[in-house]
């Protein structure tokens, strides 16, 4: 299976550079963690890698070919789980999965089997025929994950997938990521939950204000920065303020006037 490679990827909105010269390579069987604080450009990068957003400069290649030269072909191999699970609220979970499966031209009988499998394994069976408008965020996220995996993609981009999920599903998701990697899928796992990234990913890319500030295996980063956890590495690279002092300041602001 081919690599997904982004070279010197940049994106600016109205003159503001959100992603700046980012290089990412994801190989089959590899889970790349993509870390960064809020607003660091993680989602923008993931959307450019998925071909949903055109880069201002730089290139995304899959198997050595620019994905823009064959977006439809690239997306046949792609599964994408966005941070915000926006879905059609007037469809039921089952209807949404049928819609996506039919658009992907999965044979009807196989599609039905797959959909029933996903819904049952995710515990969505009882709500499967209800409108998505009545779903919790976690239920929507499960539908999005099912839709992303319906066609057995070779590349999966997880953009903060654990948002809204319960503990059991989050644990299952970690195992799922490892299992998919074990089956040769190339995976980007964007998150700000350091513990999950530490357990799941083979290497991490740390992003700060749109720029890559670290790109290596977790073990090497720990050694290089003389820290014994990813949290320590992240603090060293990204966090400029003292979190404890910041927390005290916030509590003080809340108490003003009382």
């Amino acid at each position, binding site marked *: 299976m081919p690599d997904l490679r982004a070279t010197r990827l940049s994106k600016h909105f109205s003159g503001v550079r959100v992603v700046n010269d980012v290089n990412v390579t994801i190989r089959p069987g590899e889970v790349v963690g993509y870390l960064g604080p809020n607003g660091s450009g993680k989602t923008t990068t993931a959307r450019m890698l998925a071909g949903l957003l055109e880069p201002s400069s730089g290139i995304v290649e899959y198997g050595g070919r620019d994905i823009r030269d064959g977006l439809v072909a690239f*997306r046949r191999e792609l599964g994408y789980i966005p941070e915000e699970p926006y879905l059609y609220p007037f469809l039921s979970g089952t209807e949404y999965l049928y819609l996506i499966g*039919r658009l*992907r031209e999965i044979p009807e009988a196989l599609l039905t089997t797959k959909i029933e499998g996903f819904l049952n394994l995710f515990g969505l069976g009882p709500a499967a025929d209800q409108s998505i408008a009545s779903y919790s965020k976690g239920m929507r996220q499960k539908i999005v994950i099912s839709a992303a995996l319906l066609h057995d993609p070779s590349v999966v981009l997880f953009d903060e997938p654990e948002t809204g999920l319960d503990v059991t599903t989050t644990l299952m998701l970690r195992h799922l990521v490892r299992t998919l990697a074990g089956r040769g899928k190339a995976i980007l796992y964007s998150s700000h939950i350091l513990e999950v990234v530490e357990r799941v990913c083979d290497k991490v890319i740390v992003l700060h204000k749109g720029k890559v500030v670290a790109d290596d295996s977790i073990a090497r980063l720990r050694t290089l920065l003389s820290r014994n956890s990813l949290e320590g590495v992240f603090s060293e690279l990204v966090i400029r303020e003292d979190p404890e002092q910041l927390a005290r300041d916030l509590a003080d602001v809340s108490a003003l006037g009382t």
Partner: protein
Amino acid sequence: MEAARLRTPYVQLTKLFLRQFLENDLISPEADRSQLLAMVGAMVVSLTLFVCAFMSFTYVGALLTPGQTAVLSLDDKLFYLALAMIVTALVAATQWDALAIDPRDAAILEPLPVPSGTIRRAKLSAVAILGAAVAVAVNACPSVVFPWLLVFGFRQMSVVALAELMATHLVVAIAAAAFGYLTVVALRETMAAILGPRWFTRVSPWAQGALIVMLGSALLLLPPAADRIAQRGFDGWRALSPPMWFLGAYEMTAGGVIADLPRTPMTVRQANNDQITSRMYRERRGQFPALARRAGLALALTFFLAAAAYMWNARRLPSLAPAPPPAFRRRWRLGGRLANALLVLDPAARAGFYFTLAAMWRSNTHRLTLACAAAAGFAMAVVALSSANVAPLGGPSHRLLITQPLLYGALLVGFRHLIRVPAELRANWGFQLAWRGRDRAFAAGAREAAVVALVLPALVVLFPLFVFVLGPRLALMHAALGLVGALVLLEALMVTYDKVPFTCTYVPSENMKALAPIYALAFLIGASLFARLQLDALQRGSPFRALLTLAAVFVVLRVMAVKRARLPEVEFDEAPASFQRLGLHT
């Protein structure tokens, strides 16, 4: 002090609820609401001013006597009263869900330290302000211009009498508007109180759609309905029409201002006319008090019912999930199997078919658009039928046959518009990722959904009428020809469409204002030609020639669609051309 009052939770919430009336899928969240309001306000004022000036031309241009004016003006007064009633009712119907506290609002506002009574009062105030604003906007111009032009030629009219006429027009028209508005509120709230949240959630969208169809049709049928009413009289079934009740109130209050004007010297012919019309007015005058009483009673009852039902429903704020929403798939399983086996065999077409059906009926914006199209279709069909021969086995006529293409044509034109409106723009990423470039197959599925959900029901609704007038054999032939005609029309409407229905950004046509009248004219000419074709087929007793003509047109359209140069790739997030020119897009 004043600033503090403006910051109270009640005022803030009222403003919030008022802003929500302007929020819908067609208005961008970043849109300038002041500009939008100014535009809508200007449009209403200029439209009513134009209608007033146009309708009052008779009173200014001709030398009418007081008797003639009193009789003739009854039509126009009825028109204005019915217009005020229908427009405010239509506004209430389009804001159907926003008339009561939304479960989402309750979920957000309930945890705040604001008494629930304040939230209810604020919502009630916002609903009242909306109704009052619409009533005033619709009636302001006619209340000044119409009475003034009505008595323009009467030098004997005093300024005080003119002011009395204007005030009466304003008050009665606003009362009629209030009646229309309150009727919709009362209907909604009574339904909610009787059905409970579970059933109301299911019934509500259909009730709203039916109301819009009814009111829209009534609006379009208003001009022919408000004609020669003095000659037709005010008794029998006419006395059951609400605008008539308010006309009674109007005449009770200010009818004498014109009818009893002192007569100035006039010619013999004028004197004769005045005598005849004055007698006619005097004969009708006796019926006005009963009609006026009915108006007062109806307004009071509607107000009482709306208030009682509103208060009953507002005992507690609605919860976010009042009932498990309907299980869609179970209901349609058998129909789905049939469609999969017979209609939509290709996966992309299947996706288009089911997605179109869901978007058309379950998305609020799309359902409302369809309801408006259905209203226009019904109104045109009724106008055509009103002058057709509908006697049992009366045989085919052009005016009878045209009802069919007018009804399904309006629905299909509405459909063509609504496929351009995204069902949920933020959710189209799913389409973008799963898209395999099968836009033609997807659009074919959407077309089949339009035939199943719009054309067939329209043909079925009209079928009994045609069986009654034409007999079963000709009615069947007529329905079959109608179906083929609908397929041709759909093909024609979709020739230039190369996007993915319900998913791409809405890019308004930049020259629609100029082209709309031409399109409307082309539609009417097309419907008329098609009715002629059908008439010829039915009179011959053989549909062969008509089918051949339709098949030829269909083939030409299909070839045009296939040969047409298309974009290499669908652009889901296309910006309007002006944005692209200025480089404002991404």
